[in-house]
């Protein structure tokens, strides 16, 4: 079983940095934290990835894209989808969080703040365009299962929020 910190051989990072999430293309699979283990035996690489959400339709594409990137670098791959430990939004790198915000998707809040924003209708989430926290939840589910839809009440920008998953 793979625990908290992923085990990725250093030389493979540059390959993985070229593989992005098909639904949020500014994030690489490393930013997202879905690659849990990469271990090579000669030219054969064993890779373990974990899904964000069980039904995430991007996982098959991500696995195929990783396989292609490694093949282009001269390796063969064996990719395994693992479920434990379960992915959490805490695994999104700090770089990934900044990229998300710049892309217009608000990064996950802490678990308690997330609850306040989603359940109690409190205005704690920062607008990705103007930075105001005068924001309102429009829908608990957004364009994908991992996001909710918010709207800024000052600049009126509608934006996605990447929900906290713990």
């Amino acid at each position, binding site marked *: 079983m793979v625990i908290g910190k992923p085990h990725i051989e250093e030389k493979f990072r540059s390959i993985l940095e070229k593989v992005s999430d098909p639904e949020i293309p500014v994030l690489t699979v490393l930013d997202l934290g879905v690659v849990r283990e990469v271990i090579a035996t000669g030219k054969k690489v064993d890779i373990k990835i974990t*899904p964000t*959400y*069980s*039904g*995430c*339709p991007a996982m098959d594409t991500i696995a195929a894209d990783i396989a292609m990137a490694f093949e282009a670098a001269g390796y063969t791959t064996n990719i395994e989808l693992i*479920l*434990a*430990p*379960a*992915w*959490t939004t805490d695994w999104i790198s700090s770089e990934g969080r900044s990229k998300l915000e710049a892309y217009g998707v608000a990064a996950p809040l802490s678990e308690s703040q997330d609850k306040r924003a*989603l*359940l109690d209708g409190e205005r704690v989430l920062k607008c990705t365009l103007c930075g105001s926290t005068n924001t309102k939840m*429009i*829908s*608990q*589910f*957004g*364009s*994908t*299962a991992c996001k909710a*839809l918010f709207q800024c009440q000052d600049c009126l920008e509608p934006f996605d929020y990447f*929900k906290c*998953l*713990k």
Partner: protein
Amino acid sequence: MDVSLYKYLLMLGDNSMILGHRLSELCGHGPNLETDIALTNISLDLFGQVRSLFQYAAKVKGGSATEDTIAFSRTEREILNVILVEQPNEDFAHVVGRQYLYDIYHFLLLEALVGSKDETIAAIANKSLKEVKYHKRFSGEWLKRLAGGTDESQQRMQAAIDHMYPFLDELFHVTEVEEEMRAQGVGADLSVIKAECYAIIDDHFRIAGLQVPEHPPRVSKGKYGIHTEKMGFILSELQFMQRSYPNMQW
């Protein structure tokens, strides 16, 4: 093959598969865009969880079984979901009522299964639990909103609950397979979940101003593969492609 484990995985997966299918029927038909997206996202979560369960079931079964043969090649009598999840999408209140009852049960079940002695079941439960937390919030909020809304929405929510509530009991009927799995420390203890589930629901109903229906529990045999007349229609749609073009691939 471990027949009991295999059947237990089917029972876990089939409830979510049939409910996921019912929700998928709402794609493009939700009462508004946000609700439409929410319901189909919940459907997607459920199907994702079913995939994990059926992939494991296929491993337990061995041979040429795959997640797809399990979902698409079993006949009605071999599918073990409870009758609650077969109930049609009469109106939005029925969708919410059915979802709410299932979510409360599902959440408690998954909490119990996180402690399963079977590592794969525990991992799937742990993953699913995080998702079902959101489902439960969504259906619970709507239950309250409809019950506390206009006279019309209140009546419809009550009517939906009156219809769905008697089906809840079947989830707690303990089959031989479930008893065996519980005894092995693999499955959940349904008697514990039952008490908790009814306590939570009755409390929510009281807060929302809904009457707890007095109708006695329905005697249902979904867990034994005996379904209502609605099931044939569900399967003819769910399994259409594989029945018409066996082994087709996207």
